[in-house]
């Protein structure tokens, strides 16, 4: 894999993956985590604290009393929601700033959240349960776009032409023009950030799960499927549209039918409504606020 030197340089200057998130994720994944210890870590991160309290006091949970401290919030939220709140608070700043792939009305963060929700919808359908690791992999699947965004911006015309006139899919077009596609780039970033191997694979192969060599546990296929269904629903990453190849094996692997896809799309609309708190997350001071308030693209 030949990566354009300029792009490789920009990956080296990436900010470190928020250490608090790593720490918290590790603590939550142990079956008997203590709320007190967890609160001890979280309370030093302003952005995560703000967002956890915000989620806890949202209409979604409908609590009678206002939750005003992290430790109570941890108890109320429970493990699944805690994972969501922590991740969302910690990484949304990268996604919200991303340019290049964006189209009118949709940002990459909204797409990332939708894929994470869709992955859980599929996991419930297939395994009858949710999976925090899947949520992590899914919400990070397009992280490569955060770095590639500005290059795609500059080469957008070339890439578009390859897709619309030469029959390339978007990945092939990115490779041809930039020397690397956004999934590979995400994989490199995951490596740099020391993510577990299966999450790294899920990011690096989220458009081509059929190419994973390591024995896979389905994670990468679920992220792939979730991404494709979100793109179809229109909660897309943007400029790439639906220019990806459909892999039929994905359905055979999980014994899914067309009807399951359509039902999942309905559940997603509802899920996105409930996830407002994740979408309108409070930016922390390190992030650059969006220039102008955009009209929301989804209304229910």
């Amino acid at each position, binding site marked *: 894999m030949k990566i354009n030197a300029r792009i490789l340089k920009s990956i080296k200057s990436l900010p470190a993956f928020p250490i608090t998130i790593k720490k918290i994720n590790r603590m939550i994944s142990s079956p008997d985590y203590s709320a007190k210890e967890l609160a001890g870590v979280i309370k030093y991160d302003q952005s995560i604290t703000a967002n956890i309290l915000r989620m806890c006091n949202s209409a979604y949970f409908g609590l009678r009393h206002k939750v005003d401290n992290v430790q109570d919030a941890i108890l109320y939220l429970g493990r699944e929601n805690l994972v969501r709140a922590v991740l969302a608070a910690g990484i949304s700043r990268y996604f919200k700033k991303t340019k290049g792939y964006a189209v009118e009305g*949709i940002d990459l963060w909204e797409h990332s959240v939708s894929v994470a929700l869709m992955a859980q919808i599929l996991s419930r359908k297939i395994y009858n349960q949710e999976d925090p690791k899947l949520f992590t992999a899914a919400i990070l699947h397009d992280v490569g776009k955060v770095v590639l965004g500005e290059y795609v911006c500059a080469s957008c015309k070339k890439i578009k032409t390859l897709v619309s006139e030469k029959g390339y899919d978007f990945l092939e077009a990115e490779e041809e023009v930039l020397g690397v596609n956004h999934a590979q780039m995400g994989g490199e970033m995951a490596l740099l950030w020391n993510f577990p191997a299966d999450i790294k694979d899920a990011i690096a192969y989220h458009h081509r799960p059929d190419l994973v060599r390591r024995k896979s546990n389905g994670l990468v296929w679920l992220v792939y499927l979730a991404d494709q269904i979100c793109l179809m*629903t*229109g909660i897309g990453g943007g400029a790439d*549209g639906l220019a990806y190849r*459909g892999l039929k094996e994905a359905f055979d692997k999980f014994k899914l039918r*067309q009807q399951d*896809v359509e*039902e999942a*799309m309905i559940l997603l609309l509802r899920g996105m409504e409930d996830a407002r708190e994740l979408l309108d997350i409070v930016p922390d001071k390190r992030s650059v606020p969006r220039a102008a308030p955009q009209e929301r693209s989804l209304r229910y």
Partner: protein
Amino acid sequence: MKEIVVGIADLKVSRNSDDIMVTYALGSCVAVAAYDPRARVGGLLHFMLPSSSLNVSKARENPSMFADTGLPVLFKSCYELGADKRRMVVKIAGGANIIGDASYFRVGQKNLTTLRKILWRNGILVSGEDTGSNTNRTLRFHIQDGRVLVRRSGGSLEAI
């Protein structure tokens, strides 16, 4: 000039000449713009799936989710604002697909087929469209004169 956003599985009607209806994020979903040029009444439907038989209770709750339940509501809502069936001009956009021929991914094609069938059965012609392919679309619909402009992702606004 007022912009009215039509979301996914959503429907809006208007007879206010200042209004411009906008729908973003058309993937495999389809937008149907119906317009009576004399009454200057217009409606825009953004449906997601072809048939309400998938989930009848959902369809009752939100008919705009499906082609077969959304279309009747679209036309009826326009008539209520003074539109006349014989004058209706219909334009459509969306229905994109993931590349490849795995039918599981072809929700866009299914949406278009069902839509055309329903329109044809009711003797309604489609007078403009930008459909299929594998691109995202944004659609703008001017109530003043019924103009429908479509932007493919990364492209420019084009009238259909």
